[in-house]
């Protein structure tokens, strides 16, 4: 079982999509629909049937821009302000304009959105200004419905292959990828004219407070491989210092979730049972307020439902305990918690990279193109901010449709056999050691160090210390890590991605010498926002000498201008009560 076997196969295709969670299936499907003759491969580390963040469905769409409820312009403004202005609006606008069509298409696939008694989408108002939340109380079958479409389209699906590195041609163009089978360690080399990265968030970066490596907010299969692969292929990564940190049920480490309870009248409260969040849209500012309350005498923070009617609470319970993270109900039973009586203790998540909830991702333009020709990215790992599930679907579609045209224009880039040989050597190194340190110990240590030194508030000296500790741990990983089977080999490769992400997190955070995005980049020794010097993206990449480097990039001129008083509209609302 899980024995390591030697072997390599090679396949060619027009488009290789890596990651079959949310964005990936849509990218592959749309490419194939647009050109049924194109050879499209969807490669997945787990099994597309139930992989990714949405494996058991979602509580709802957090950011649906549906005519009659909100407009694309309004949405773009909202995201721009929530992101402290550091947004290339073109991509956000494109998402906002396309997402309604995608909702309708998903509805046709049989994905179940909440509808009113007239069959219209039952959009709920949660935010102060726009109306964007569309619940999915019966959305647990979302992956089934998607998978059905992929099967009907006869897409080529490779399950249980973990991609480890991208291949680039001499001209710097994308050439394909290398993957390893997670059950027998055989290699798969895929030559492709275009590659679309959809590998989700870097969710195993920080360590959850429980200490359980897999008790993460994100689907624990999302170990940041996409970020690491894009980095090693020379792509630029944007604003990695804008960490993802989310509110969640303490210890359970899954969302509570404000977007479910909100429309029913539930909310996040302090120990006095009072609302305390001033900020409107989900943002780093909101997380800062959450953090402050946690640290204050009014902490910790709770989910409050006990003021609602019994009937309403039952309805919320059904949603929270049947979709998205259905073990929530079991957790509460173990704790003897009942939403009707007490409040539910909440906390903040470990840190990670994720554009879905924040803004840290592989840099992409409004066609989902990265800085490497022929390489695309979509979903949580691509830089379009606050994108969530619908963003993954919509931008996955954008990537697939663009890539299918792109591959008409190009031939395969040549692949570098030496690089492939070196990569195989890197991958197999831990299998050649008879004994050594197992991946789980190296992972635990790295992530523990991430918590100790990188969690905001960020301190310069601590982050420098982190870099030293990471370097030592990396040395152990490169020279002493040992594995006994193919499954552990997968874990060892994940550790390498986690290590790369940890290095990038420290490097990017040290670069931006200001505080921005609330808690996400709260630098204790640079507490102020500095628009004069830092109203820009940071773009991290690997230089020709193989060293990590980072530069500023201007924010593209706004397509939807934001008036001074509109920026203010949010700040004004945050004014504290005088009492």
């Amino acid at each position, binding site marked *: 079982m899980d024995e390591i076997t030697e072997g390599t*196969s*090679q*396949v060619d295709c027009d488009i290789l999509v890596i990651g079959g969670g949310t964005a990936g299936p849509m990218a592959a499907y749309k490419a194939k629909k647009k050109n049924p003759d194109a050879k499209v*491969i969807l490669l997945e580390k787990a099994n597309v049937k139930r992989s990714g963040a949405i494996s058991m469905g979602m509580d709802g769409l957090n950011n649906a821009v549906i005519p009659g409820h909100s407009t694309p312009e309004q949405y773009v403004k909202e995201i721009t302000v929530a992101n402290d202005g550091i947004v290339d609006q073109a991509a956000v606008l494109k998402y906002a304009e396309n997402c309604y069509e995608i909702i309708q298409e998903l509805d*046709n696939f*049989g994905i179940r959105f909440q509808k*009113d*008694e*007239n*069959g*219209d989408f039952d959009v709920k108002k949660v935010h*102060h200004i726009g109306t964007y939340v569309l619940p999915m109380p019966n959305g647990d*079958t979302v992956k*089934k419905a998607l998978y*059905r479409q992929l*099967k*009907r389209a*006869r897409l*080529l*699906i*490779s*399950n249980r*292959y973990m991609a480890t590195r991208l291949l680039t041609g001499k001209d710097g163009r994308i050439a394909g990828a290398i993957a390893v*089978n997670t059950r027998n360690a055989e290699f*798969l080399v895929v030559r492709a004219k275009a590659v679309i990265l959809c590998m989700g968030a870097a969710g195993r970066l920080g360590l959850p407070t429980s200490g359980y490596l897999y008790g993460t907010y994100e689907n624990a299969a999302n170990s940041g491989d996409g970020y690491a692969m894009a980095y090693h292929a020379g792509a630029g990564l944007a604003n990695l210092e804008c960490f993802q940190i989310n509110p969640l049920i303490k210890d359970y480490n899954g969302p509570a979730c404000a977007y479910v309870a909100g429309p029913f*009248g539930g*909310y996040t409260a302090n120990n006095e049972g*009072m*609302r*305390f*969040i*001033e900020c*409107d849209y989900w943002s780093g500012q909101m997380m800062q307020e959450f953090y402050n309350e946690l640290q204050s005498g009014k902490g910790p923070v709770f989910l409050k439902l006990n*003021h609602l*009617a019994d*009937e*309403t609470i039952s309805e919320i319970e059904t949603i929270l305990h049947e979709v998205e993270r259905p073990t929530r109900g079991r957790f509460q039973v173990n704790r003897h918690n009942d939403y009707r009586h007490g409040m539910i203790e909440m906390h903040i998540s470990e840190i990670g990279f994720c554009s879905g909830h924040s803004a840290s991702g592989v840099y992409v333009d409004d066609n989902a193109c990265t800085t490497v020709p022929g390489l695309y990215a979509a979903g949580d790992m691509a830089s379009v901010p606050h994108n969530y599930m619908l963003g993954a679907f919509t931008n996955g579609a954008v990537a697939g449709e663009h890539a299918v045209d792109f591959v008409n224009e190009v031939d395969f880039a040549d692949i570098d056999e030496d690089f492939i040989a070196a990569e195989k050597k890197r991958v197999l190194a831990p299998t050649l050691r008879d004994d050594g340190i197992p991946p789980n110990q190296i992972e635990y240590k790295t992530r523990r160090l991430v918590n100790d030194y990188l969690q905001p508030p960020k301190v310069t000296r601590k982050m420098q210390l982190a870099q030293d500790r990471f370097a030592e741990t990396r040395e152990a990983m490169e020279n002493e890590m040992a594995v006994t089977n193919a499954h552990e080999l997968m874990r060892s490769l994940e550790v390498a991605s986690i290590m790369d992400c940890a290095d990038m997190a420290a490097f990017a955070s040290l670069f931006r010498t200001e505080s921005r995005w609330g808690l996400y980049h709260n630098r204790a020794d640079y507490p102020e926002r500095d628009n004069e010097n830092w109203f820009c993206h940071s773009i991290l990449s690997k230089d020709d000498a193989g060293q990590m480097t980072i530069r500023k990039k201007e924010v593209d001129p706004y397509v939807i201008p934001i008036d001074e008083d509109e920026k203010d509209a949010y700040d*004004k*609302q945050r*004014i504290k*009560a*005088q*009492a």
Partner: protein
Amino acid sequence: MSAFEPFEQFDEVEDIVDRLDDPDPGTRRVAVMDLADSADPSAVTYLKKALGDEAREVRLQVALALAEFDGPETADALVVAVVDEDAGVAQAAADSMAELKDPAAADPILPFVTHESAFVRAASLRALRELKRTESLKPALDAFSDEDATVRSEAISVVGYLKTEDALPALMSMLKDVEPAVRRTAAGALGFSVTTAAAEALAQSLTDSDWQVREIAAETLCKVQSTVAAPALRAALTDEYWQVRQKSIRSLGKLGVAEAVPEIIPSLDHDISNLRKEAAAALGEIEAPEAVPALEAHLDDPDPDVRKNIRWALGRIRSE
């Protein structure tokens, strides 16, 4: 380079069907699962045949498997499963039937709307809802007088999805149903109409004995966009349930009912912050200058959401 193809194999249906005759029910069940996985529409015929299997678990698996397919043939098989003697099989079939998307799937289902079992009638109507076929209107309306409440509710949804004004009188009559759940569905289903008749009917429901009916009626009234219900909504501001008051305030705000301002203002002092929040928003929507002193007096509400709405409301009123 090897000829190895590292892709999911979708088994050919012919290779699976032999196993449907295996003496072992477990093996037959796995064969059914493989048929579902094949995504090949030709599997439906075999699945239908397997509904005759003597083992309940095999039939159950078939009922589940049919959710992977669509169209009239699938519906044709599901109506067999939905009348299965085993309740679990029938329930799975009912759930699979509700997944159908192809309007043509309605044809085999329509005759079952009058089936002798209430469960089957409800399941059929539930499936017909999403298919939105005009042929469903008549049988659904007939089912408004069904003895079973679930059937009546499902029938109302079918009619509600079709959004035809012709059905308004029938829908309105269901606001008087004996079952609260039915009345709730009916109140929601009237949301498509912009007629005064619908508004008047919903206004009456604001005094329904069930608070959730009152809540839905109050909520739906803002969609119906008619102010004839304004007096009833104002009266609902003294409802014993804050939830009903909250929805009424929201609708009064959206409908811009200026007369309601003095009655909304007291809600700025209620214990439940959700109600204070709604009151502030509605006063802003109505842009009522006479609300300014009350709003200003609550600028320091302990709840930030209330403060936000008060500031927003004051900004709106003052910019006039």
